[in-house]
């Protein structure tokens, strides 16, 4: 079996997980602690990838990433190369698709924090950034870990959106889910079965870890 698609999936999942945590953590912080008009509209928009078919998202991403799309044009301006059908394009598309999986667990763990603890940090003289690293992060680390694992697992398992924006270029955009699809199309069931088994094992291990972390997520105030 060719392991390149599996490694590519893992690389994509890793890059996306890191970027998602960097994007979703401040967004979740803002949504959990700030109330503003139209907040539900923003939350619904972020949750859209959960309900919209990946092909629909993929289609719009492909248009945006094309040489005439704003994302594609910007990328060409910055790097000189095109975005569609590249690894970077896969990262963009996967980020958009997986953001609710990262944001929701982080937001939920922030919302579990007692608001008075945050007030206490300002009474004691901490800046919001210090409060985040000294109080919020240590008390929500399980939620953040769960978000990281769900983002990783979800990106590993993406298919539709990747097929739309990445195609199946070996070593560049042919990730494990696409490779399995091609094995089946070529009637190479043994290879498809083996790679599927690896994917199931990885996903199951991740879900076990997430559930374990969720069971330990209660903050023990007193």
């Amino acid at each position, binding site marked *: 079996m060719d392991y390149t698609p599996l490694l590519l999936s893992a690389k994509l999942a890793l890059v996306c997980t890191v970027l998602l945590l960097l994007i979703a953590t401040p967004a979740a912080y803002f949504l959990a602690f700030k109330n503003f008009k139209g907040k539900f509209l923003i939350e619904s928009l972020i949750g859209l990838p959960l309900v919209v078919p990946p092909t629909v998202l993929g289609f719009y991403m492909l248009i945006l990433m094309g040489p005439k799309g704003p994302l594609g044009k910007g990328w060409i301006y910055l790097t000189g190369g095109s975005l569609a059908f590249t690894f970077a394009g896969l990262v963009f598309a996967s980020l958009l698709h997986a953001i609710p999986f990262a944001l929701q667990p982080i937001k939920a763990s922030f919302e579990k924090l*007692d608001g008075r603890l945050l*007030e206490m940090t*300002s*009474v*004691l*003289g901490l800046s919001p950034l210090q409060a985040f690293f000294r109080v919020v992060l240590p*008390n929500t680390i399980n939620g953040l870990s769960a978000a990281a694992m769900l983002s990783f697992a979800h990106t590993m398992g993406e298919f539709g959106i990747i097929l739309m924006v990445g195609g199946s270029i070996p070593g560049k955009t042919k990730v494990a889910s696409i490779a399995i699809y091609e094995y089946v199309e070529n009637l190479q069931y043994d290879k498809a079965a083996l790679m599927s088994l690896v994917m199931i094992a990885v996903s199951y291990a991740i879900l076990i870890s997430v559930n374990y972390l969720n069971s330990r997520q209660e903050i*023990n*105030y*007193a």
Partner: protein
Amino acid sequence: MLEVAIKKQMPGFTLSAEFSCRNGQLVVFTGPSGAGKTTLIRILAGLESADQGSICYQGRTWYDSARGIHLPPKSRELGYVFQEHTLFPHLSVKGNVGFMQKNPNKVNALLRVFKIQHIADHKPHQISGGERQRTAFAQALAKDPKLLLLDEPFSALDSATRNRLQYELKKLRDKLSIPILHVTHDLTEVEYLADKIVHIDRKFPVPRYEQPKTENKVQSALKYFKSVAY
């Protein structure tokens, strides 16, 4: 000296308070639930803003609606103890006391004064309610605050522990030379601790009694409050 004269529109009534508190004096806010006692403490802490009025501490303006001054909580250098959940759950007793105080000698001294050295490495959920509130007091005093705000700090405790901590607070008041503002429902606590009583009620325009020296005067004030509010 802390001087306060503020008004804030609450749902259905106006919270209005005017009082002063000298260094070393313990002012107790009494009154029924929902009268705005906690809101008043939060306004003093800078966590909420009043609608009008001023708050001055030692000649420095913390809040002045006319001049648009509102110092954030951290610039007021406060100690603040709530009823519960004041402590950081991920830190030990020592970690909580030393949260903003890096000097280990000072932290150890506070642990000794508040009799919590033996539980220094315990997390808040591993200790009793009384020990948690002792830790909260030590944390609040760790950075030498200019004002101590206490929002029903003993109300979640059993009566024996509450009596003991009330006694310790009274001793502490004698040692500290800062204003202490204390919210409570407990009239025995008012009687025992108050140098001065500020009654907060929706129905009455903040009746006040002040007589720090004579117990009798505080007693008669209490009789008055019992007759009007309870």
